[in-house]
């Protein structure tokens, strides 16, 4: 290769965008050409300088805090796309989730329908993380959990959010007999993902789990100190408030609407338990008795995880009787219940 030919490829060479044969030829040329070596060093320094400059300029640049509310206001005047768009998009974004619709086509109860629709929301929100360059490196695989209730199985899953997803290995049957079982995720203003999932029935007994990354100080709110799995936690009792709730079912979900599908519900005399488990902050909010909540809290274990992008053909089938995980703990069929 002559200097002129090499010179045209130096930028691509630095960007690792040349073919293996070009790389070999360029290296051979550089070994004996001081001029091209100097050119390469100058271009490399320039690339770093440009990259550094661009990063510096955007370091403090951020959308205004009102950006989302502005957009919401604008969207409010917009005809909302068909309510079936989300599952359609979900299927396109994460093709493996097509299995959800296969289950729907097989004729599921609406209770399962709600659960699975909610799972779709969980999958979608977590799956998008894998497409963000800055987050891509943090996504090391998927998580999945399944619970077996007398009325049917419920499962959640998604791409690993950068902290250990924990799930209860014990849940009382009463939470599986309600009309609503769902999972969802939310992104905070700082871009962190939290996961929350709900079991039970707003008109009966219910429990909601919220998880997110543990902050550096692992601060706990004020409340009664409790011990959960050897870790210090806090119990706050006598809570009342409103839980805005329940996703609308897509139009393409078959079956009769569930009996209870409130947009929100008010609760009273609920308890909140907050604790840290490794790199995860866990909260459970429930109207179950405190003893039952602590029993659930102490049963939390890492969700089943695996390598690669989620969903690897949704999730691997669990062999009969197997309750373990590939790389962590797992939640298999719940064998014993009170």
């Amino acid at each position, binding site marked *: 290769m002559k200097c002129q030919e090499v010179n045209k490829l130096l930028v691509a060479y630095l960007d690792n965008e040349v073919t293996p044969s070009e790389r070999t030829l360029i290296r051979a040329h550089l070994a004996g050409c001081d001029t091209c070596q100097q050119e390469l060093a100058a271009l490399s320094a320039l690339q770093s300088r440009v990259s550094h400059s661009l990063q510096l300029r955007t370091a403090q640049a951020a959308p205004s805090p009102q950006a989302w509310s502005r957009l919401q206001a604008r969207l409010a005047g917009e005809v909302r796309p068909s309510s079936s768009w989300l599952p359609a998009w979900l299927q396109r974004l994460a093709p493996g989730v097509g299995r959800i619709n296969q289950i729907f086509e097989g004729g599921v109860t609406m209770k399962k329908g709600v659960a699975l629709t909610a799972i779709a929301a969980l999958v979608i929100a977590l799956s998008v993380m894998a497409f963000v360059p800055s987050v891509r490196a943090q996504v090391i695989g998927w998580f999945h959990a399944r619970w077996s209730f007398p009325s049917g199985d419920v499962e959640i899953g998604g791409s690993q959010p950068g902290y250990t997803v924990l799930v209860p290995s014990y849940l009382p049957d009463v939470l599986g007999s309600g009309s609503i079982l769902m999972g969802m995720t*939310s992104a905070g203003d700082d871009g962190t993902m939290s996961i929350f999932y709900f079991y039970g029935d707003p008109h009966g007994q219910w429990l909601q789990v919220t998880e997110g990354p543990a902050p550096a100080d692992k601060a706990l709110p004020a409340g009664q100190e409790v011990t959960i799995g050897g870790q210090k936690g806090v119990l706050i009792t006598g809570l009342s408030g409103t839980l805005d709730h329940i996703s609308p079912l897509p139009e393409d979900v078959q079956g009769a609407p569930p009996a209870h599908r409130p947009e929100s519900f008010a609760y009273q005399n609920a308890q909140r338990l907050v604790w840290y488990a490794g790199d995860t902050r866990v909260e459970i909010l429930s109207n179950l008795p405190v003893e039952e909540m602590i029993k659930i809290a102490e049963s939390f274990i890492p969700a089943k995880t695996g390598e690669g992008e989620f969903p690897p053909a949704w999730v691997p089938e669990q062999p009969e009787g197997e309750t373990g995980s590939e790389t962590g703990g797992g939640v298999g069929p719940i064998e014993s219940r009170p």
Partner: protein
Amino acid sequence: MDLICRCQTEEAFAALFHQYKNLVYKTAYLMLDSADEAEDVLQEVFFQVYRSLSTFEPSKGAFTTWLYRVTVNHCLSRRRKRRLLTISLEKISPLAPTEHPSSQDRLEDEEAVRQALSRLSEKLRTVVILRYYSELSYAEIAQVLNIPVGTVKSRLDLALKTLRQELGTLTEEAPTLCAVSQREVAK
């Protein structure tokens, strides 16, 4: 109550917005060199995303590639409008001074790079931002801009060499002037 589940559509779209708002905003900020315009582009891009999600085809590329494409297109469209406006103003006020960076600015490296980037053509500046800020591969840039990979390669090569010439000239100017000054003193 801090555990809020909204309806499925809003919840998913809110998650999408918060996940990608910085990507869109910062790309627009670099392309337009204006916080106000980047804010407007953020609104326009997500409004379009909301309306067009159903047409997104993952088989034709990753979601982020599509999002970058929408963002870049909005920015280029704004730059074209801005250029038209500039022409119009120049006609009205032909004596308006052309902006030149001060010599003080040129001494600061970051400002020098910024100025050099701003003098690149739109096409070259766009590939530089997508490569050296967004860290997209050549193939991803090709998808975003809908151009062949070979064109990405040649544009980046030209952009870097133009920048090198521009920034190299700037750093070489000072010693040259100094030498002239010394000769004058010697006289």
